[in-house]
């Protein structure tokens, strides 16, 4: 372990994990080691079912690794901690609450010193930032898929978590809505500093949003390839269509191909 890695805000150290199912045991992670520096944004890509979501559940403390350890801010993760915010492919908004009350939900759990007026103001500010001003009192069912996902991002960030975990949050959206939300992500990153982990199937999304892209091997997953991107912070969509971007995409695509070939057949 190099000293530099110890400065990482998120640190996954030699983690192996096996699920026990009715048809036997299924090893998903094999000696996985990776780190994300403070305020960094790392995208994790890999073949379907390679254990990417397991990584997010480990970092959130929802799952304990069989071997190895997970560290947040230099402390070993043994149970869920409120420094984490999560958003999934399914926005999982509560249908009986207004958008505003949905966003305020984490503040009801995390013991914070904020007054109720301050909580509401915080939620309203975030909704405004993602372009949902005026929709605070709507029900989730009255919003489009993209708007629901925006609200879900606000909920993940409302308690100002150190770590934002995004598990394919844009996977179910159409291409144009997805590109809008990518730009919203950059805006959020500017206004709300966080350390991010993004699980995705979309290589363009990975290189547009992240500082670093990690390719996981097929199951059981370990880090196969790491690509640091030249840019940090906001960028324009045009930059996805430069020769450099195309080259990066090709390298990553090649790596995914290798990862898939390495998988046991039939899995």
């Amino acid at each position: 372990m190099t000293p530099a890695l110890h400065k990482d805000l998120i640190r996954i150290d030699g983690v192996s994990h096996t699920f026990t199912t009715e048809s036997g045991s299924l090893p998903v992670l094999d000696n996985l080691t990776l780190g994300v520096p403070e305020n960094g944004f790392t995208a994790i890509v890999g073949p379907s079912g390679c254990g990417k979501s397991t990584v997010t559940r480990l970092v959130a403390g929802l799952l304990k690794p069989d071997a190895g350890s997970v560290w947040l801010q230099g402390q070993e993760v043994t149970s869920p901690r409120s420094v984490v915010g999560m958003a999934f492919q399914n926005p999982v908004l509560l249908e009986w609450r207004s958008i505003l009350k949905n966003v305020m939900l984490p503040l009801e759990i995390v013991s914070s010193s904020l007054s109720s007026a301050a909580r509401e103001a915080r939620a309203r500010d975030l909704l405004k930032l993602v372009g949902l001003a005026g929709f605070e009192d709507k029900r989730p069912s009255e919003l489009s898929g993209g708007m629901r996902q925006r609200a879900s991002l606000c909920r993940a960030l409302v308690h100002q978590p150190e770590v934002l975990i995004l598990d394919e949050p844009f996977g179910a959206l159409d291409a144009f809505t997805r590109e809008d939300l990518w730009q919203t992500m950059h805006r959020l990153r500017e206004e709300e500093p966080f350390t991010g982990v993004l699980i995705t199937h979309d290589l363009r999304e990975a290189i547009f949003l992240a500082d670093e892209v990690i390719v996981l091997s097929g199951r059981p997953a370990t880090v196969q390839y790491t690509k640091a991107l030249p840019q940090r912070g906001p960028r324009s969509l045009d930059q996805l269509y430069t020769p450099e971007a195309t080259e990066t995409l090709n390298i990553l695509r090649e790596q995914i191909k290798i990862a898939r070939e390495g998988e046991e057949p039939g899995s």
Partner: protein
Amino acid sequence: MRQVFVPVLAIVLFLLFWEGLVWVNDWPNYKMASPSDLWPAFWRFKWLFLTFGWETLWRTVVGLLIAIVVGVLLGMVMGFSRVLREGLYPLLVGFNAIPKATVVPIVALMFVGQHDLNTVLIAFMISFFPIAVSVSIGLSTLEPEYRDILRALGASQMTIFWKIALPKTLPEFFGALKVAVTLAFIGTNLMEIVSPHGRGLGALFDSGKTNSDYPLMFAVLISLAVLGIALYYVVVVLERIFAGWAERQTD
């Protein structure tokens, strides 16, 4: 306006059809009483209808309330624990499959003379099953992400239940409650009819039978239907208040 007018019109048409059917076939009232025979029966026994109607109503409601408490608890236990669900399910299905008409004499013998207790007990036994099943299905089919958004913040199981699992199950619960209301009425009346020296509308039906007063028997049936409709709409109002969000907006 339309919401009141259409159901009232439907009832009036039904009564006219009924009256016409009896008149055309020239049925005597021991074969089928007609609506015009019922008013005299109601009027003659109006105090009995009021007091016995009240007896039937309160027993049904008490039986139903017990069914809600027991059903929700059973549903929670089965919804949260897979082992208990697998263990309890066949037992509950078996219990539910027994026709309650066969249980009535057993219960009547078990608690001889305890007419109120017997009646409430049968109303409860017949109506808790759909509630237990709906709550358990509602809880066990909760998508894991819903739990995870709160669990990741360190929320307790109790907090997750109150903030997410319970409200999310309410639409299923009210759907089952609508079924349970009618079932509880059937339970109450089964016991009232079978019990000797019973009270309630079921007992009034039974005395109509003993005295060959056919219009009275039909009048009891109608008053049971009226009580059933009233209680059903009480549940509908409660559903609007507590689970109105689940209704699709139509505009």
